[in-house]
């Protein structure tokens, strides 16, 4: 009996208040959003990360920092209304070209989307530099190849994109619901004979895929 009790205590998770403290410490320490699993791995056995996160998030409501969800991950960020205090921390971002901003928006709203689709929407070819810049900013990444002739690569937005724009998920993009409801996010094929209607599965797309990324794509 005594032994059983001892074993139970040894393997019992710490009380919820303590779990919350631990999650708090881990989230504070990281500049990057962390997944539940990553957090769990660092906690003692048997902790309920989801519950701890919920109460931690509540605890910081209205504070100078907030517990935010970024995709499937969690992070602590300063409250947006206090940004003016952080002039010193402000990072001067490169001014993005119109092409880059539009390409990013198209990928975010239409993801997964191919280069040909981006070109079809913008009516001009997408320069390699634009895609490279967005990849470099870690705002977009390669998604699965499209199972259409030519198997073109697709692009999707990253967790860093969500983090940067303070989005929980791509579903929270501004106006995404209205756009979908009005059919503007539909992939409506162009009737034949329209300029730019061909060109799907551009052979150039192959340049874009490194071997490593290909592996990921087909996992």
């Amino acid at each position, binding site marked *: 009996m005594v032994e059983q009790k001892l074993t139970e205590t040894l393997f019992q998770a710490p009380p919820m208040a303590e779990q919350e403290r631990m999650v708090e410490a881990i989230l504070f320490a990281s500049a990057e959003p962390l997944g539940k699993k990553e957090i769990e791995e660092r906690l003692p056995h048997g902790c309920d990360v989801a519950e701890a996160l919920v109460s931690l998030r509540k605890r910081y409501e209205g504070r100078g920092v907030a517990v935010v969800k970024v995709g499937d991950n969690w992070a602590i960020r300063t409250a*947006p209304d206090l940004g003016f205090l952080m002039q010193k921390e402000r990072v001067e971002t490169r001014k993005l070209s119109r092409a880059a901003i539009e390409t990013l928006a198209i990928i975010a709203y239409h993801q997964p989307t191919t280069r040909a689709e981006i070109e079809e929407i913008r*009516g001009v070819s997408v320069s390699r530099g634009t895609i490279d810049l967005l990849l470099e900013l870690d705002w977009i990444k390669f998604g699965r190849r499209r199972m259409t002739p030519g198997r073109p690569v697709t692009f999707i937005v990253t967790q860093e994109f969500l983090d940067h724009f303070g989005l929980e998920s791509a579903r929270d993009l501004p106006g995404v619901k209205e756009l979908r409801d*009005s059919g503007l996010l539909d992939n409506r094929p162009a009737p034949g004979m329209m300029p730019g209607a061909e060109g799907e599965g551009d052979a150039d797309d192959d340049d874009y895929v490194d071997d490593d990324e290909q592996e990921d794509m087909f996992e």
Partner: protein
Amino acid sequence: MPDDSISDMFDTASNISIEDRRLQESLVVDVAGFEGPLDLLLTLARSQKVDMRRISVLELAEQYLGFVEVAKQLRIELAADYLVMAAWLAFLKSRLLLPPEPGEEGPSGEELAAHLAFQLERLEAMRRSAARLMGRDQKGRDFFARGIPEDVEHKRKIKYTATILDLMQAYARTRTKDQFKPLHLSRRDAVYTMEQALERMKSLIGHAIEWGTLQQFLPEGWQNDAKFRRSATASTFAASLELVKAGKMEIRQSEMFAPIELRRKVGDHG
């Protein structure tokens, strides 16, 4: 002069306001600023000042064709895709205006016009969305991540394992060694250990200024006993290698099976 010709052009093309004409004039000047024909079409469509869903594709086609005409007159070189679009819009215009030929293949003028309207509306919507996206609070500008992140320190912990079998085998090994001890004792007189050789070499090394053979370093009376000679030669050789390794001696052999020669390392007086 050019102003007049532009006005004439557009007056004949369609009835459009002065304001729109101004817009189109500036369009011509800024042609390099457009991101392709669709962008130009969208800008022209905006000048219709109606809901994007209700734009007149026919009117738009005419405006575009008028624009291309003016550009040609001004000898502005238009990129190929602008000309492709012009040709296509002219084709679209004819489809929209003329009844379809019996048995004609392909999509109707209305279908093509509808898709063009859709494309323009979609481009407009994406532009708006892009602006709204960029208008959001951004990390590093409006909100911030932890300034002093603490990295997870990776510690390596070595866990040693040994089983009871390992333990017993180890003990068996040491005991086996122990059991053979009497064997050594009984043979001690015929064995010249490396430690003994090393002792002897160390005492002789100071005198070995010149090259001398390995045999010269063997203990007294080695030639009397073959067993002893073997053991002593091996031990002395091993000891001399140790001394060479320690930088105290030099060793050489002119060819295979030639005598091994040794001398004190030059400059070493220890």
